[in-house]
């Protein structure tokens, strides 16, 4: 069953290309900015949202984490689809209510999988944020992680496949992926409830390591 998606991107090629190029993704509408999307508010399982929205000039809409917050507030599941790699910005997006992040450099099937995951209520994060989740777990910011969840998280943070983790921990791949889903949900919940500055303090990161957020 394909996922009903809406794309918000100021790049015409992306808007038109997503509908044609991504198998399993049914792009029901595409918008150049958040205000147009909110005005139409089409039904969708997931909203693919670019962060660097240039706007039309006459009606500049929100961009970056502000755009995420606006779409999430309207009750949509947001999957950030971006070239942005700065951890501070990505953390701010999750804090603003994003359910997932996929880089535009990743293969299209990764986008399709991520969209299906977000539509199904799961959280999708990048390897850099997986590393941050491991740091948060190690520094005590995620006390609810179980020992198994920590083991799976450590493996994923080191780039290990679920197959490799499953073999090492005597689990099935599905069980290992389930543990990771739990970790991501807990991490996303932490980021929603705490400011990036809180996380920075909890993780003992350099000042402005996560809060220095230039405009997207």
């Amino acid at each position, binding site marked *: 069953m394909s996922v009903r998606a809406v794309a918000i991107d100021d790049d015409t090629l992306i808007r038109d290309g997503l509908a044609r190029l991504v198998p399993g993704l049914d792009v029901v509408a595409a918008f150049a900015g958040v205000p147009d999307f909110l005005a139409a508010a089409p039904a969708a399982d997931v909203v693919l949202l670019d962060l660097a929205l240039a706007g039309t000039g006459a009606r500049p809409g929100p961009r970056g984490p502000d755009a995420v917050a606006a779409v999430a507030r309207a009750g949509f599941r947001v999957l950030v689809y971006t070239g942005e790699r700065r951890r501070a910005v990505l953390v701010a997006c999750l804090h603003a209510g994003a359910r997932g992040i996929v880089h535009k*450099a*990743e*293969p299209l099937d*990764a986008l399709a999988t991520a969209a299906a995951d977000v539509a199904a209520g799961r959280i999708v994060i*990048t*390897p*850099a944020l*997986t*590393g*941050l989740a*491991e*740091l948060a777990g*190690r520094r005590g910011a995620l006390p609810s992680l179980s020992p198994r969840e920590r083991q799976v998280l450590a493996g994923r*943070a*080191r*780039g*290990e*496949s679920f*197959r*490799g983790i499953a073999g090492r921990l005597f689990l099935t791949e599905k069980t290992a992926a389930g543990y990771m889903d739990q970790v991501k949900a807990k991490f996303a919940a932490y980021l929603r409830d705490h400011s990036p500055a809180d996380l920075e303090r909890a*993780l003992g*990161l*350099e*000042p*402005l390591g996560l809060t220095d957020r230039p405009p997207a």
Partner: protein
Amino acid sequence: MGTGRAALRRWRDGQGALPTTPAGVEWCAVAVVVGVRAVNLAQLAVAFPQAQAHATRPGVFAAVLGGYLAESAVVAVLVLRAGSYRNRPLAWADTGAACLVLLAQPAFSSAADRTGSWTAFGFACTLSTAVGAAVAFGRRRETALVVVLLAGCYLGTSLDVPAVHRSTVLGNAVAYAGFAALGRLLTGYLRRLAADAERARAEAARAAAETARLRELERQRVLLHDNVGVLRLLAGGTVPAALDGPLRAQAEALANRVRAFLDEPDRVPDGATLVGAVRAAAGEYADLPLEVVTDLADGVVLDPATARAVRAAVATLLANVRLHAGATSVVVHADADPDEGEWEVTVADDGRGFDPAAAPRGFGLGVTAGSALAAHGVTVHVHSAPPRPTDPDRPPVPPRPTDPDRPPVPSRPAVPGDGTRVTLRGALR
């Protein structure tokens, strides 16, 4: 601390006479301790004629007061000269002097006058000793002992006051503890605040230096990028005669700049840290789908030779990934476990794996990432598996050579797989 004149100028300009540094906090504490004592003694000087008239023994009163004045002057000179009051022997000496002054009160004041601030001046003046102890002593129990001594001496010589004044005496005794606690609270907080400010300044300076370095790196990248056109023209073979000379000159300049650019990464930044070595190596492979995660290894210091070996090994592993793996995701992860006394660097890709038992160990894993690291006590663990033989869609893959100098395996579409994970482990210093 600058000169007094500079401090006055800052104060006049509304910037505050004292700097907001740890040294400034110590000066502030000195100013408070000496200032409180000076204010008490100045008030006493004004009240001196009347106080002496009420003294039972005016001569003893004057002698004790004079002695205390001299002792206070010595303490003030010593702490002002040091710029801080963290001299424990001096603080104990001041406590001893304060106890003697308190014990001497009955020698020149009547029991009825013992709660008068100026006739029995001991209590008012020795409050500053309690504050001084809070500043001078790092340990709580030493401050508490000073408070007990002062309150004990005061109570011991003042409980013979008329019953109506007894509650005043008890209240005064409690004031020693109150002043010491508040002095400790304020001084401790200011010291922590100043230390935090100092750290923030150091971080800001480091960040500014790093920003400057990155800006320079970016400038060089732009420079190289702009010269790609020259290389393309030369590679094309047919260069218009008019362009030949200028093009060669530009190519020569480019060669020099590239050489300078390549020289730069040989330095391991940040005083040979693990993170610096890993990031320096990864920085050369920006074309890979690379994710570098190093927060857990922050602060791990290596000796420079080990740092160079780690850097070379990570660079070799990434060169292998670039040439052979066809990966869609590469993770470089650094970690340190103080409990185990060990650091760890993992380079993992999701590309074509290989059979470590079957693959020949070339110069890459065999020398750079193996023997050279072993010389520095770093072990190498390789986890890799070729595609599953049961997968009919994947062609068999030949053993993966690990020598970047060998010709690469012909490129093919990326095949996500279990890939290769190489872990380097070494002991924390």
